[in-house]
């Protein structure tokens, strides 16, 4: 299914009746400006988009199209100039700054392109950070962290420091850290950009396996066409606007078009079959 109104995208399709559990994120007429006066630049134009729970949504588009700005606003790291974001039924505008931080700590997990693991902490301690932020006892937090590391296949490197891990291993630790507090929304920023093809594939498989849950939404920002097949839907952006949202069989076409648009090699991309 493809819906392509310029800035207002209807995502009311039933991607997969068994997994989707309602709308997780609803962006309403989001605009974002940077700078003032003559230097003011509008990077998002009245973006209207919904992200359902129980799916992995890929946010794709060329560099500078506004992907990072949009997920920063969705994750509560940036304020929109206009519009609002509703996260699991809670309008962001209804939260004070302090409440927003607490909401983020409890409900949102992050996977970063550069991993952003604390170099002085072991893998276990890094994974435990969101729990420590939530004021959980250190022993309990570490036990839970070790359990998550087991899930991502890193139990044997639990005591290793980031400098002792490969890029792929660091990203797996980062995924464990993003999931350890069981967030309802997982935001991944170019999780495979710093990885080779094999490691990138492993990371995406891992995300699909451990992150996608019926009551959790996963948003992955990427321009790596090799990972398109792992998504349930592709939200295409360009010039600060949503260009299209593609699901199901249309993913293959979307992959090809987006790849062509960003100048990346296409080849053997195959859409992930949600069923």
């Amino acid at each position, binding site marked *: 299914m493809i819906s392509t109104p310029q800035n207002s995208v209807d995502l009311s399709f039933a991607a997969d009746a068994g997994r989707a559990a309602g709308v997780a994120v609803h962006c309403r007429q989001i605009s974002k400006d940077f700078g003032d006066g003559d230097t003011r630049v509008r990077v998002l134009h009245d973006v209207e988009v919904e992200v359902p729970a129980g799916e992995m949504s890929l946010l794709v588009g060329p560099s500078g199209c506004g992907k990072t700005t949009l997920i920063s606003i969705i994750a509560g*790291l940036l304020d929109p100039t206009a519009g609002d974001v509703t996260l699991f039924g809670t309008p962001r505008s209804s939260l004070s700054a302090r409440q927003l931080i607490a909401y983020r700590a409890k409900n949102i997990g992050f996977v970063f392109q550069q991993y*952003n693991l604390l170099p002085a902490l072991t893998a276990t301690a890094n994974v435990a950070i969101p729990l420590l932020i939530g004021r959980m006892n250190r022993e309990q937090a570490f036990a839970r962290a070790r359990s998550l590391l087991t899930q991502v296949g890193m139990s044997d490197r639990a005591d290793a420091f980031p400098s002792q891990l490969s890029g792929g291993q660091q990203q797996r630790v980062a995924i464990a850290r993003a999931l350890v507090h069981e967030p309802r929304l997982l935001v991944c920023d170019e999780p495979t950009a710093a990885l080779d093809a094999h490691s990138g594939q492993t990371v995406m498989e891992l995300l699909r396996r451990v992150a996608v849950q019926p009551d959790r939404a996963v948003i992955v920002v990427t321009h790596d066409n090799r990972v398109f097949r792992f998504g349930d839907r592709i939200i295409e952006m360009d010039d600060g606007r949503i260009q299209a949202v593609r699901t199901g069989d249309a993913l293959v076409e979307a992959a090809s078009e987006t790849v062509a648009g960003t100048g990346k090699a296409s080849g053997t991309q195959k859409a992930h079959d949600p069923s």
Partner: protein
Amino acid sequence: MNWVAWQMLTGDRAKYWGTIFGIAFGTLLISQQTALFMGLMRRTASQIDGVREATIWVMDPEVQNTDEILPLSETDVFRVRGVPGVSWAVRYYKGLARAKVSDGRFRQVMLMGLDETTMVGAPVEMLQGSLADLSRPDGVIVDKAGFEYLWPGVEPRLGDTLEMNDRRAVIVGVCKAGAPFQTFPLVFTRYTRALEYAPPERNRLSFVLAKPEDGRDVDEVCAAITKQTKLLALSRNQFFWRTIGYYLKSTGIPVNFGITIALGFIVGTAIAGQTFYLFTLENLRQFGALKAMGLANGRLVLMILLQAAIVGGVGFGLGMGVTAFFFEATKNVTHLAGFYLPWQVVLGSAAAVTMIVVLASLVSIRRVLVLEPAIVFRGA
């Protein structure tokens, strides 16, 4: 998150110890130089501090310190005794004399002439001989440091002789006394004998030492003496600080020490601040990630303050330890006698280090507070 802050801090050993070194170096410079400065200032007034019995010093109104003396008339002691409220008043000579040792060498000495009967102003701690031996003809007591100046390499002993103003003096006692500002040997003798050793002058009474009657206020009696005799009467404490004040105002000592202390503060702040700031800069993405993950600014500030407090505490301990070791190791060195580490210096240095740490961490705190957590979504 305190544990995380500690791990982040100690994870980079080089920066951790670099920051500590900066603070330790600053602490060492500040505390050691301040203690030396205080010791030096205390030396300027050590002769006042050494006279325990008298609480009132009477002198010519032009006198500003213990080393520049305009002598009084011998009869002034009687005028002071006549002031109501004065319990007793005695003569005290303090001046410089040239002492020649038997082998021909000579040293300038600080000569103290004590009242014959009361011995007010006599050294408190005798190491060899006794105060009573001053009654022996030509008997003088010399301080231990002074003995070592006069007879280098010779263990302090009794019986050696000096010649002052063509008169013979015999060492009948060795005492421990507060070192003077000028490192002259201290020679104690009877008042009349001191006048024989001293160069001739019309008036030679340096000070009148007095004590108020029991229950009388020292300042009131001083005022009464000044009013009645037109001489300057000061309490021991007033004269102590008048002397120190003179040296503070009239010499370059405080400026020089002040510059060194300020350098210690600036260098300490610069090293600690720069290293700590670099540490924060290098961890900026991590701090951003923590903010993104929901760590509030208040807790981030606490983390940075904890890190600053740790390096500050360790650095201060190390620096102060080295300072204490210096004074402990040099306490028996003659030239450094009287220098020690007062608790006020420890406290003052702690305040300075606190300021260094706060200044060093303020820049880092500001940087982290204005940090947009969205930074974590930007590529390297």
